[in-house]
């Protein structure tokens, strides 16, 4: 159990430890007003009548107004993370994609390119193993591995713990590599400045319309593995067209983590974003 916020996170582990082993920056959830409605009040508010069962032994039911988003709790943690990160002027990105599209490889290349220019810290999310965090640490950058167990996405609470632990420097870059999954991570705000979706050219052009939520949530699409285009039938323009259909504002950069193609544009995008923060 978490000593600071009282959470118990089931299977989630950060660098192999249960999430509560280490403290998190303090978080006091803001209680939302919930109004219990009596029959008289219900009538006044035009709500459906409350059924009264006065049969002996059958407990009476009452109606409780909630009006809370399912993700309200996550969103509260995300706001907390965002406040902390922007307070430190940390530019945080949430990298999302299907498994194997090249997120970790891109991160390694990005860190190498930024060596001596910008501090980068990484939070890695995977269901199991710390291999990706080790790949990052091999570059010399600090990395923390979150293992979600059966969980298929990172949430703002576990990321908050990891942020506290990695303690990112003022004006640094924080890259959060989400669990490879184009569905759930779209719904879970982590407190990042932007979601960046990586689509590799070995996947279908139609991923953006098959998983519209993710492409709608992202500010930037990195079209990765462009070095492979000569060997494939992948239609780049069609993929971009689909992405813009679900998100007219999405920016697109074609890259190859392998050959370094497009990396200059990506680094420039990062620099512009950090400067704004």
């Amino acid at each position, binding site marked *: 159990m978490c000593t600071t916020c009282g959470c118990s996170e089931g299977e989630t582990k950060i660098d192999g430890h249960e999430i509560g082993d280490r403290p998190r920056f303090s978080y006091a959830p803001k209680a939302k007003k919930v109004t219990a409605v009596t029959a008289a009040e219900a009538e006044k508010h035009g709500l459906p009548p409350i059924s009264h069962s006065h049969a002996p032994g059958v407990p009476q039911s009452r109606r409780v107004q*909630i009006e809370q988003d399912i993700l*309200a709790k996550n969103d509260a943690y995300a706001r907390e993370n965002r406040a902390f990160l922007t307070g430190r002027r940390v530019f945080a990105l949430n990298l999302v994609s299907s498994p194997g599209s090249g997120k970790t490889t891109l991160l390694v290349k990005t860190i190498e390119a930024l060596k001596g220019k910008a501090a980068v810290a990484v939070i890695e999310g995977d269901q199991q193993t710390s291999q990706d965090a080790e790949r990052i640490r091999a570059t010399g950058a600090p990395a923390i591995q979150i293992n979600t167990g059966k969980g298929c996405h990172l949430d703002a609470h576990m990321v908050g713990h990891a942020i506290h632990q990695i303690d990112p420097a003022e004006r640094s870059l924080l890259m959060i590599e989400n669990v490879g999954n184009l569905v759930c991570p779209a719904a879970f705000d982590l407190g990042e400045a932007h979601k960046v979706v990586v689509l590799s050219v070995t996947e279908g052009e139609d991923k953006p319309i098959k998983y519209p939520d993710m492409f709608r949530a992202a500010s930037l699409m990195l079209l990765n593995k462009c070095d492979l285009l000569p060997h494939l039938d992948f239609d780049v323009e069609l993929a971009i067209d689909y992405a813009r*259909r679900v998100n007219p504002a999405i920016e697109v950069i074609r890259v190859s983590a392998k050959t370094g193609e497009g990396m200059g544009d990506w680094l420039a995008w990062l620099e512009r974003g950090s400067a704004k923060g």
Partner: protein
Amino acid sequence: MHEMSLAEGILQLLEDAARREGFGKVRTVFLEIGRLSSVQPEAMAFCFDAVVRGSLAEGARLEIIDVPGTGHCLDCGRDTELDEVYDPCQHCGAVPVQVTGGTVMRVKELDVE
């Protein structure tokens, strides 16, 4: 599965509300699900039943309130219905349409005892 983590979110909300409001059992959960929210009502109902087993909401009825997708066309200025976020305007065929409603996933109210 997406709906599984959302069902867990619902259970958390119920447990928090129970502490604040002092109820011990949930009979019915009224849940608003927008058509553009990418939640499948059937999958949600299935996951909800599984997640609440052994909790204060075991056996509770899940009432899903369907919220239609709506948008505003920036071309012709009219409001339009949407089944997908990237649907064209039903009046003039323009894309994209600005989404104005139907992405909600909200616990509206509860019947409790």
